């Protein structure tokens, strides 16, 4: 779950990591003498608080004269933005990059630092890897910091960054962060290190122990994705017209690939998960039918998942609604015979091969 810049900066501030002087507005009316006067610089940065990247390129971060702040904010609000951060302009001497993330291969945390900040760190890692310092670690100790320090050229950066790193890691552990990134971390002309941006991603698996963030989880999801999340379904909106329901993330991803291979296009990713119930199946159908789709492909390999439960869910839904699009059901595994019985009693047939099933649904929607 991604936090917005101002939320990340709030966390930094509370941890004692310096951030620029700023205030948040949600409406043009939020501007007053007081909040603007706290900003001492002649120019301000007006920053849309949205989760998409490359805000500067899309004109969602602009630097304007203080007197034009309100106008600029209005302009950005009109673009559909809900929250804007107004910030003092920093007197930049140098931009560095600092982040702590997880390292999948080392099964640990990873410190990333570059004296060349403000850029795309991935690109820099690829094109000039010698400029990126990457250190996997479990704890921040003197050994780690010396390893880092011997590679930092700028004395002021070197002297201040250790403290920031300790605070950043402490924060990361407190909030169950997957990534805490400061890009750029700015060295001002009077040699102070200030976090000019904040990118914080919280581990979704940890939300059960962070009540304060649970309500934030809904942001950046489409309407259907939000509904799915409420029902405990793993769902992603895609661009195609064949609704997909499957059990198991790998199986569903593979189904999307196979559909594509045979000339179709999936409307969504939906994993009902292990041991799915009749209710979950009904909810899944409801969800995918809420979009404009031309056909449905259901792919179930029943391990813990009982095929007869899935079949019952499908039958319940079909009975209560009129499904006008072709459905192809592929089911195999636990209780498949019972499932077959249930479906056939209700005049719904199924196929036991995934690829044959895909070919069939693609064929059927091409006909209509």
């Amino acid at each position, binding site marked *: 779950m991604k936090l917005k810049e101002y939320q990340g900066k709030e966390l930094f501030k509370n941890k004692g990591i310096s951030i620029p002087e700023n205030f948040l507005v949600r409406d043009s009316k939020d501007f007053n003498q007081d909040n603007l006067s706290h900003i001492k610089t002649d120019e301000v940065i007006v920053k849309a608080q949205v989760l998409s990247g490359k805000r500067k390129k899309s004109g969602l971060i602009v630097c304007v004269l203080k007197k034009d702040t309100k106008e600029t904010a209005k302009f950005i609000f009109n673009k559909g933005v809900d929250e804007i951060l107004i910030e003092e302009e920093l007197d930049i001497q140098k931009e560095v990059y600092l982040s702590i993330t997880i390292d999948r291969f080392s099964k*640990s945390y990873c410190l990333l630092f570059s004296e060349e900040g403000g850029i795309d760190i991935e690109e820099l890692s690829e094109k000039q890897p010698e400029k990126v310092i990457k250190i996997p670690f479990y704890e921040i100790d003197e050994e780690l910091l010396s390893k880092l320090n011997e590679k930092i050229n700028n004395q002021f950066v070197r002297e201040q960054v250790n403290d920031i790193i300790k605070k950043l890691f402490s924060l990361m552990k407190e909030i*169950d962060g997957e990534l805490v990134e400061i890009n750029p971390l700015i060295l001002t002309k009077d040699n102070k290190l200030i976090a000019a941006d904040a990118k914080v991603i919280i581990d979704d698996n940890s939300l059960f122990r962070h009540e304060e963030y649970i309500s934030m989880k809904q942001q950046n999801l489409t309407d259907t994705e939000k509904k799915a999340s409420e029902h405990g379904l793993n769902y992603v909106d*895609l661009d195609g017209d064949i609704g997909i329901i499957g059990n198991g*993330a*790998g199986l569903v*991803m593979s189904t999307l690939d196979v559909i594509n291979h045979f000339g179709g296009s*999936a409307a969504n990713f939906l994993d009902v998960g292990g041991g799915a119930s009749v209710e979950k199946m009904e909810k899944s159908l409801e969800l995918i039918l809420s979009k404009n789709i031309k056909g449905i492909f259901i792919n179930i390999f029943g*391990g813990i998942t009982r095929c007869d439960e899935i079949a019952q869910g499908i039958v319940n839904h079909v009975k209560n609604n009129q499904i006008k699009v072709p459905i192809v059901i592929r089911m195999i595994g636990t209780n498949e015979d019972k499932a077959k019985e249930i479906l056939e009693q209700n005049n719904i047939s199924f196929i036991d091969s995934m690829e044959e099933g895909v070919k069939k649904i693609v064929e059927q929607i091409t006909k209509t």
Partner: protein
Amino acid sequence: MSILINKQTKVIVQGITGNQGSFHTNLMKAYGTQIVAGVTPGKQGQLVEDIPVYNTIEEALKEHEADYSIIFVPAKFTKAAAIEALNNNLNIVIITEGVPIHDTIEIMKLAKEKDLIVIGPNCPGMITPEESKLGIMPGHIFKKGEVGMISRSGTLTYEIINELTRNNIGQSSVIGIGGDQIIGFNFIDALKHLENDDDTKKIVMIGEIGGNLEEKAAEFIKDNVTKPVVAYIAGKTAPKGKTMGHAGAIISGKSGTAESKTAALEKANVKVANLPSEIVKLLNQ
């Protein structure tokens, strides 16, 4: 000999009295797995089937010997369960999905210090067909044979095993390594074991988008694996930046794409299937 587990492997089930724990204990036992005891705090003295339940692993180990613990404990308590098992020198299989990353890192750190095996988390477990099953996979689709399989997926693994078995291609060992961002036993660990296993003649890798484990495995295969390897990577058509079910199945920026994994594997002379059904063809080539 197959790898990691066999008829002699003794297992403790943590979370044995829960829904998932008890359900799968029955199935594992029926398959032939030697389940010696179960652990659920507060339930000492109970029986699941005829398997004795203890409050702690330490209590259980006073009366029984064990090699592995399989964990069916909810995500909230998984770290405590895993650490308890590791502190008692047991290798572990973590079935649980949803374990927080910071918890997983702690588990991995301890496992590394103790040189113990962690399979998972968020995995279906592992099976040596016709000998032992430590997991939730449907036993009847597997058949003893010479193909070793390593997979990040659950049901996709069953899908592919089903094809293999139907085509008379049996399996020596099948290990579900899990779908999370950080997992224990990975492709390289499995490849090392399978390369050294006399019963394994061919290897199948089932990967998916996210991370770089397949790419690292490809590097390893070039210099260390002589047996033929066939792979399949799910998520070719997945969009960037979206988590596709598995916490670890996400393309971040440019890395973790199916293309990158396929290219790396092909460079290592691994045959990469375009469809699940192609795997049988490639194994028979």
